[in-house]
């Protein structure tokens, strides 16, 4: 049985593959240069950031109530959403209470995860994406294929065509023109919107500060004219102290977009105070669980350290060849191959192939700003898939009980080593051994020389002597 991701990779047009490859490679190389130019030991910083996030996860039971109290004392209304449905319903309820019908959104992966936009549309509410990439995804009825760069799979000609189709001007694929047109269109929308919706990159438990990082300034616009701010935040987004943000922001921007700092970093402590001239009068934080507590209870909890920088996608050779949509889930790439099947909960079997879509090369772990041992987690999920008998977990990688029998019986093993020489004379392409056929489709098999080394070892006089000595001793 073929692996869906492997099959998908063959359907990817060469120009798309090339643009994903070039763009991820360039960002990865710049990221590495920047980190090593700026810091004496960036790997130690990654470890430290990982320790901070891991500590936070392991004390969420105290940090979550603490941040709720802090947010409330800052005048923020806090909501808890166990499921995607709860989160969507919470947004809708806030909208309905205000008689609001229009949302301007800045980029948030959690809103993708809970499928907020289609839910709101069904209830007569327009939720417009204002991040340029997400806006293009929205008008194309597409899905993001990268967690930081949602349209990494599109070229500017496709975007120009989409803009023309949507009545945003005659065909013009000049990036500046495209941006200017989106900007002109969105300006009106900001002014007409009732509510600004954002995600949250971090929330400090100490101060209740919500931190947003963007490069387009759209989240500021979302919160400039609207009277109500809703922030959708995963429960794992906490950091204990404000001073932890220095380290994490330094790592996030460099890892995500190879910048020292994103163009806009907002620290939002609550709704507009009476002395402030403008800004939302009402602020809500919706803490989204949606399976995270269950992940926390597994041996894969380290994945919740993730700060969504996308560095593991950029360095991953599999992502580079297959692109984001190959992962059939909101979170693609190495982090997605761990997180998506876990967040799927009962639907884990549907994504049980994703943890296998990795050569376990470890490049993801090497670049992760919070040092998540992604290969170890992928391996744990491969084991979980097999234990739970998920068919996709065994497709093309069948159980290996008979190999274990062979490898624990040295006499049989040695016989097999000699018998393997048949491979040198048999037409291997005709043998009904799927892995062998998969190997030989694009690769030759080296000549079988089973047992030769052992014979040589035995034939050496000094070894025979030592063996004899050992035998005498025992």
């Amino acid at each position: 049985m073929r692996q869906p991701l492997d099959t998908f990779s063959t359907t990817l047009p060469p120009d798309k593959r090339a643009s994903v490859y070039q763009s991820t490679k360039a960002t990865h190389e710049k990221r590495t240069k920047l980190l090593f130019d700026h810091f004496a030991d960036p790997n130690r910083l990654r470890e430290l950031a990982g320790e901070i996030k891991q500590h936070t996860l392991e004390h969420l039971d105290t940090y979550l109530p603490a941040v709720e109290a802090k947010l409330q004392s800052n005048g923020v209304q806090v909501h808890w959403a166990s499921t995607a449905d709860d989160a969507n319903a919470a947004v809708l309820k806030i909208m309905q209470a205000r008689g609001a019908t229009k949302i301007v959104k800045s980029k948030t992966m959690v809103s993708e995860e809970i499928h907020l936009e289609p839910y709101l549309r069904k209830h007569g509410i327009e939720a417009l994406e204002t991040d340029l990439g997400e806006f293009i995804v929205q008008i194309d009825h597409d899905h993001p294929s990268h967690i930081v760069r949602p349209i990494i799979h599109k070229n500017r000609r496709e975007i120009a065509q989409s803009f023309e189709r949507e009545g945003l001007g005659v065909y013009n694929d000049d990036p500046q023109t495209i941006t200017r047109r989106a900007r002109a269109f969105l300006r009106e929308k900001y002014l007409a919107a009732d509510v600004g919706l954002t995600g949250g990159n971090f929330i400090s438990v100490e101060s209740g500060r919500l931190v947003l990082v963007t490069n387009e300034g759209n989240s500021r616009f979302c919160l400039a004219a609207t009277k109500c701010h809703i922030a959708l935040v995963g429960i794992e987004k906490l950091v204990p102290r404000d001073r932890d943000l220095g380290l994490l922001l330094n790592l996030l921007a460099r890892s995500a977009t190879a910048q020292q700092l994103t163009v806009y970093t907002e620290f939002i402590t609550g709704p507009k105070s009476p002395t402030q001239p403008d800004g939302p009068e009402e602020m809500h934080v919706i803490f989204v669980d949606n399976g995270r507590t269950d992940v926390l209870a597994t041996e894969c909890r380290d994945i919740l350290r993730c700060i969504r920088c996308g560095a593991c996608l950029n360095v991953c050779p599999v992502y580079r060849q297959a692109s984001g949509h190959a992962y059939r889930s909101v979170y693609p790439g190495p982090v997605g191959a761990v997180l998506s099947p876990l967040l799927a909960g009962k639907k884990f079997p549907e994504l049980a192939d994703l943890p296998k879509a990795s050569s376990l090369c470890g490049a993801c772990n090497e670049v992760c700003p919070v040092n998540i041992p992604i290969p170890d987690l992928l391996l744990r999920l491969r084991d979980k898939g097999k234990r739970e008998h998920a068919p996709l977990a065994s497709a093309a990688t069948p159980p290996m009980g008979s190999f274990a029998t062979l490898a624990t019986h040295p006499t049989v093993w040695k016989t097999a080593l000699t018998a393997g020489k048949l491979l040198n004379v048999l037409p291997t392409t005709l043998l009904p051994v799927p892995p062998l056929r998969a190997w030989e489709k694009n690769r030759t098999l080296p000549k079988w020389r089973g047992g030769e080394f052992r014979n040589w070892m035995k034939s050496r006089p000094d070894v025979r002597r030592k063996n004899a000595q050992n035998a005498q001793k025992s």
Partner: protein
Amino acid sequence: MDLSHRRRPAADRRVQLMATCLCDAFFDDVARATVEVLEYLGCTIEFPEAQTCCGQPPFNGGDWPASRKIVRHTVDTFAGDAPVVVPSGSCAAMLFHGALLEFENEPDLPAVSKLASRTWELADFIVNALGVTSWPGEYKATLAFHRSCHSRGTPSGEAALHLLSSISGTRVVPVGEAEQCCGFGGTFSVAFPNVSTAMGTLKLEHLRAENPDVVVSADMSCLMHLNGLAEKSGSPLRPQHLAQILRDALKNSALI
């Protein structure tokens, strides 16, 4: 990966050799070269006859119960205190990292940990256990070194490059995108043949960019995949394991 706790060789330099299943089945000369190199360095080599596989294929494929059976067999086979030297970064990492992961909740974790603390990849052993800083002999060739992924986070890659560069006559050329995987990945190579092939093709371009005479690695699995692709496309590589280069350098100068 912190490997500083590993057991160092005793004064008599007695070591156990884990030849790896790939050398057992296909690449006998690599295992032979490993023996010759270690003996040149004064090691006494034990080759436990009952050895089979490190357990990595089922570990990697997600069949951990099958893998644990093989690891237990390996632990029994490599009894004793001597360092276990492996001419493969991948099999070595299986024993000092992977096995610990799958034995986390098993009662015999201590025995597995003990083997882990005795296990060394060959280049790491030569440089960091035996303290060899430059390699004698001569090898006149341009070499492209493929840093295999399972040496990430270990001193092996640097040790191998250091040894290769120190040999008289070698020129080690830089390889583009050295941090990228060759696409082998064990079961990945047969379960995801298209992605695996695409990755390998890209790696071959980088390895060949400077027209090296030989492509060297500390892992035969990567070389088997890369040369398999190269040969299938009609232009084979000259793949050599690090141990073969070290042995041939000694032979070229009649040091062995």
